[in-house]
Structures are given as structure tokens and as C-alpha cells.
């Protein structure tokens, strides 16, 4: 579908659309493909870490502070001194890529320093997470830097999870599953303000926390097929059903709608057969298929490979039961493949 057809189908003013796309393409960072943005994001992370080290050494070596409340307050002040210039550099929205990268790095480092400083001052991870939230909102709502938005959201979410862990919160997988649902909602119904980087962070949050629980058994949840993980499974199952419902709304073809309903049913069943992370990966793959997103497709496949191998290896069941679970999931998936293959062959013949 070209722009003309898109404008006709959705009642968009063609001239306004051409103008918007031409202006959008001038924003170099936004126009860059995802892997270039990821590369630049990684570079910004490294620079931000060096700046944080600079701030830490400045306080320890020059001001002779070695922790405690005064160290925390000083770190907050230093963080604000970094964040302020970074914020204004990005607020000016200059075309200079060096200025943008520098602004991104010092603003990210500044936010992190203020949060960590607050954590030191109050001797609480919760305080660090709470202080990080307004920075995250400010960056997402005012600045145009996608890299900084992703870094800020990720940092805030990580602190939030650490804070919850500190409060002995026992449902990290359920919470992050709700985070994935929020990410799906932001992706399917994006606000006019570009919150795609934050949405992406929320989307990968669930699977990443599920990976971390593999390494952190004390986080509260282990993969045991019968006793844990039902909450996130239910959330991901509902999410998959919702995604198929959204897909169902995109077509008027009755046959196609019946097929989508069958796929939805199968996805819900699979969400209960697979580990929570694997169910999240299924939701990501459905989203990728619906929107035509290569990045989400790649993420979904890689995560699915990881979770399936890890899950079946770790699962506290006899090999025979594992074999039956695998066979059940395999038969459902191959059934869907056969259904889709048949439909496609019929369409091609027609």
C-alpha cells in the first residue's frame, strides 16, 4: 500500500501527509534504522557510565566523601548539575549529532546520579526509584531524544523492580507481565507524543525479568510447571487473545475472522503450556506479525528459543511428562501451521 492508497483508505489529507513525512525524514535520529539507533544507544550508555564514574571519583577524591547522607546529597547536586545542561542541550533540539549525543549521555548520567544520591541520602532503594520517576516523565514528555527516553525508562524500571525486591514483593513476573501489556497498548494505540522507546522497554521487560529469575532463585519465583507462574501466564494469554481480537477487527473477511479466532484459542492454550517468558515471546511475535515489525519478530524468536530450551531443561518434571507437554504444544503449533498453509494454498489457487 503506497501513501496515496493509505491516505484514501484512512481519509488523510495527502498534502499534509507528504509534508509530515518530509519533515519527519529530516529528523536524522528518528529516520535511522533500529540497529543504528541501538548502536548509538550503546555508545551513550558507555559514555554515561564514564560520566557516573567521573562524578563518583570527584566526590570521593576531591571532596573526600565516602558514603552516607552527605555523599548522597552531594551526588544529587552533582547529578542535577549534569542533568541540567544535558536537558537544555537536548531541549534546543539542535541538528548537531555530537551535541545530541553529549546531551543524552550527561542527562542520562545526571538522572542516574540524582537517583543513586537520593538512595544514599535516604538509605533506601525505594527513594531512588521514586526520585527517578519525575525525570523519566520529563524526558518522555518534553525531549525528542529517543535514546535518552529508552535509557531513562529502563533505568527507572530497573530501580522500581529493585525497590520492589527490597520490599519483598513476591510477584515480579505478574507485575512485569502487566508492564508488557502496557507496552502492547502503547504500541497498538500510540499517543501523538512519541513514546515508542518507552513502549519497547516495557515490552522486553517481562522476558528480561523472567531471564533474571533463572539466575536469581531468591527473587521469589521458580519455573515449576504446576505451582508457579499462573498469574503471568493468564496475563500473557489474555494479551495474546486481545492481540488476535485487534487483528480480527482489521479484516471484514468472515473466513479470516474464524481462522483468527482459532489462532487466538490456540495462543491462549499455548500460553498456559509454555513458561511465562515463552508466553511473552508469543505475544511479541503476534505483535510483530500484526504491525510488520522486524525488530519485534527478531526479539520474539530469540526469546522463544531461549525460554523453550531453558524451560524444558530446568522444569522439575519427569522426562515423560516433559515429553507429553512438548508433544501437546507441538501438535497445536503444527495444527496452526497446517491451517495457515491450507488457507494460503487456497488463496494462491484462487
Amino acid at each position, binding site marked *: 500500500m503506497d501513501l496515496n492508497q493509505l491516505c484514501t483508505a484512512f481519509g488523510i489529507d495527502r498534502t*499534509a501527509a507528504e509534508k*509530515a*513525512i518530509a519533515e519527519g525524514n529530516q529528523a536524522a*535520529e528518528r529516520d535511522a534504522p533500529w540497529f543504528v539507533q541501538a548502536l548509538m544507544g550503546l555508545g551513550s550508555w558507555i559514555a554515561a557510565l564514564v560520566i557516573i564514574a567521573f562524578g563518583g*571519583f570527584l566526590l570521593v577524591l576531591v571532596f573526600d566523601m565516602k558514603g552516607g547522607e552527605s555523599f548522597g546529597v552531594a551526588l544529587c547536586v552533582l547529578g542535577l548539575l549534569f542533568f541540567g545542561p544535558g536537558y537544555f542541550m537536548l531541549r534546543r533540539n539542535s541538528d548537531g549529532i*555530537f551535541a*545530541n549525543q553529549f546531551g543524552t549521555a550527561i542527562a542520562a548520567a545526571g538522572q542516574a546520579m540524582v537517583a543513586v544520591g537520593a538512595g544514599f541520602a535516604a538509605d533506601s532503594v525505594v527513594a531512588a526509584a521514586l526520585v527517578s520517576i519525575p525525570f523519566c516523565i520529563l524526558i518522555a514528555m518534553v525531549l525528542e531524544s529517543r535514546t535518552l527516553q529508552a535509557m531513562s525508562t529502563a533505568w527507572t524500571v530497573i530501580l522500581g523492580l529493585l525497590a520492589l525486591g527490597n520490599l519483598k514483593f513476591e510477584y515480579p513476573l505478574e507485575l512485569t507481565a502487566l508492564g508488557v501489556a502496557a507496552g502492547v497498548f502503547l504500541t497498538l494505540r500510540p499517543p501523538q507524543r512519541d513514546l515508542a522507546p518507552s513502549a519497547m522497554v516495557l515490552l522486553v521487560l517481562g522476558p528480561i525479568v523472567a531471564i533474571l529469575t533463572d539466575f536469581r532463585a531468591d527473587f521469589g519465583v521458580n519455573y515449576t510447571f504446576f505451582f508457579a507462574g499462573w498469574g503471568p501466564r493468564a496475563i500473557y494469554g489474555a494479551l495474546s487473545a486481545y492481540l488476535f481480537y485487534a487483528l480480527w477487527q482489521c479484516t471484514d473477511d468472515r473466513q479470516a475472522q474464524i481462522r483468527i479466532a482459532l489462532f487466538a484459542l490456540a495462543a491462549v492454550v499455548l500460553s498456559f503450556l509454555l513458561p511465562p517468558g515463552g508466553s511473552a515471546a508469543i505475544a511479541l511475535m503476534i505483535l510483530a506479525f*500484526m504491525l510488520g515489525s522486524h525488530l519485534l519478530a527478531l526479539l520474539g524468536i530469540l526469546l522463544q528459543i531461549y525460554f*523453550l530450551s531453558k524451560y524444558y531443561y530446568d522444569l522439575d518434571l519427569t522426562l515423560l511428562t516433559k515429553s507429553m507437554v512438548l508433544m501437546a504444544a507441538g501438535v497445536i503449533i503444527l495444527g496452526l501451521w497446517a491451517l495457515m498453509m491450507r488457507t494460503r494454498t487456497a488463496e494462491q489457487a484462487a
Partner: protein
Amino acid sequence: MNVKRSNLSDLNTLRRADLVPADRYAEAAYRIRDHEFWSTWALRVLMALGSGHVLGAIIFFFAFNWADMPVFAKFAVLQGGIVITALGALIAGIDRPVGQSLLIAASVLTGVVLAVFGQIYQTGADAYQLFVSWGMLIIPWVLISRNAAHWLVWLIVVFIAIGLYCDQVLIPFKSIENTDAYLILGSFLAVALAAREVAVRLDTTWLVPSWTRYVLVFAGLACFFLVALLYVLDFEATTSLTVLAFLIALGASLAVYRFVLADFGAFAIATGFGGFFLMAVGGRLIAETIGFDSGEFSILASLALLTIWCVAITAGMGRTLIVLRQQFVEARA
């Protein structure tokens, strides 16, 4: 007239301009995507996941009963599996995805047979010999299946065989140092990449998908990068040859994917490795000249300089890639 197809990036721009309402965004995205591509993608994913599960179920079923099975039954099961999957591939058709998946399963089972053989008869063979035998035995199937995923399985088997040969023979006998193993593995991947490029030029259509190139470019450069980085961070950890090898591999990748086989994705991967290598070189230079351990001022000055260096490199990478991307697009047009 060549009409440009709308993409997700265009749609996002229209959404930000409030020209597409939020509640119709998903529908618009669904309509502009390449239906043929995503339909094929979904079929392949379902096929791979489904057959992987069923194969896993079969393996787990036999694993459950393995200890109680007589030796003859063990080999009968595995070799019967090879015969059934190979025959199944022949019947289903080697050019069809089902046939190709069955042939991949036959290749995997070949490795399992060799492992079980070694386990039962305690042959005393080194692990690399298993992988060498495995890699050699499945070459005909890899060639006749003409499937990129099968080819990747074979590459992984051979990669592990070379790695184990270095680890179990060359390094213990002092023929090479630990770090040289990475150079050998990187060289193997470089040769595989070159072979892939030649094969594509000779109309080997099944190797055309760009991921077959990206996997090799990334993995090959990563092997060279790791040891070169080790040298930059610690001169005594390895030799300067590693840096030379990395620079040759990097230069060749940049030149080939810029001027010969113009491919922005592969070029961006190489640029990324080059950029991060330069960051490390800058860090080392700062450490050697100003130092990170000689007084308060020098530490802070070094960190400040390193920050500017890292930002400059990142910005330089970004600028180069954004500018060159346009040239790649124009060249392709």
C-alpha cells in the same frame, strides 16, 4: 512510475502529526505491511516451533526410557530415526520446507548417534573428533537440502569442532596460544563468509537471505574484536598480531560492503565494531598519557577526556551511518 510503498516509519510520522487517529493505527499498520512476507514468516516460525517441539518430545520420551533400553534398541531407535527422517524428506520433497526440516532432523540425529556410540563403547576419542565426524557426515545432506537453516547448523557443528580441536590439541601441545584460537575461528568464519558471497554470485538462491551474511559478519568480526580488545586493554595478554588481524578483517568488511556488495546492514555491523574498538584505543591512550592511577587531577581529567572521546566516537558513527545510508539507498535505486 515507481511508487514507494508506505512503511511503519512513515505511519509513525503520520501518527505523530495526528493525521492517523490512535484507534486506527493498528489497522493502518496491518494494511501497509508486506502481507506476502509476513505470511511466509508466520508459516516458517510455526513450522520451526512445531517441529522443534515434536522432535523434543520424541527425544525426551526416549530419554525417559533410555537407562532401561538394551544397546541394540538404543541404536535401532536413533538410526531408525535417521532412516525415517531422511526417507520422509525424500517423500515430502527436498525443495519443500517439510522435507528440509526432516533433513535437518536427520543431521541432528547423526550427531546424537555419534554421541551415544562414544558413550556406550567408551572409545576414548576426544570430543572434537565427534564434531569433525558429524560435520563431515552431514555435508551431503546440507548440500542437497539447499536450506540456509541447515547450512547454519552445519556451520555451528564445524565451528565447535575447530574450537574443540584448538582447545584439546593445539593449545595443550603449545602449538598455539589461547587467544590464537579466536583468530583461527574468526578466519574460518571469514572463509565461510567469502564462500557465501561467491555462492550467491553464482546464483545460489537459498543463501541470498541477508541474515546469512549478517550472522557471519557479526560472528567473524566478534572473534577478531575480542582478542584485539584484549591486546588494547593489556599489552601482555596477547600479541599485536591480533590487532592487525582485526584491522584487516574490519577494513575488508567496510570496503567490501561499501563498494563491492553495497549492504548497509553489514556495513553498520562493521562500523559498530570499529567504533567500539576506537573507544578502547582512546581509553588506553588516555591511560598511558595521563593515567587513571596517578593523582586526583589526572583521574578526573582522564575520565572527562574519555567521556568526550566516547561521545565523539558515538556521534561520528551515527553521523557516518546516517549519511551513508542515504547513499546506499540512492545506489540501490
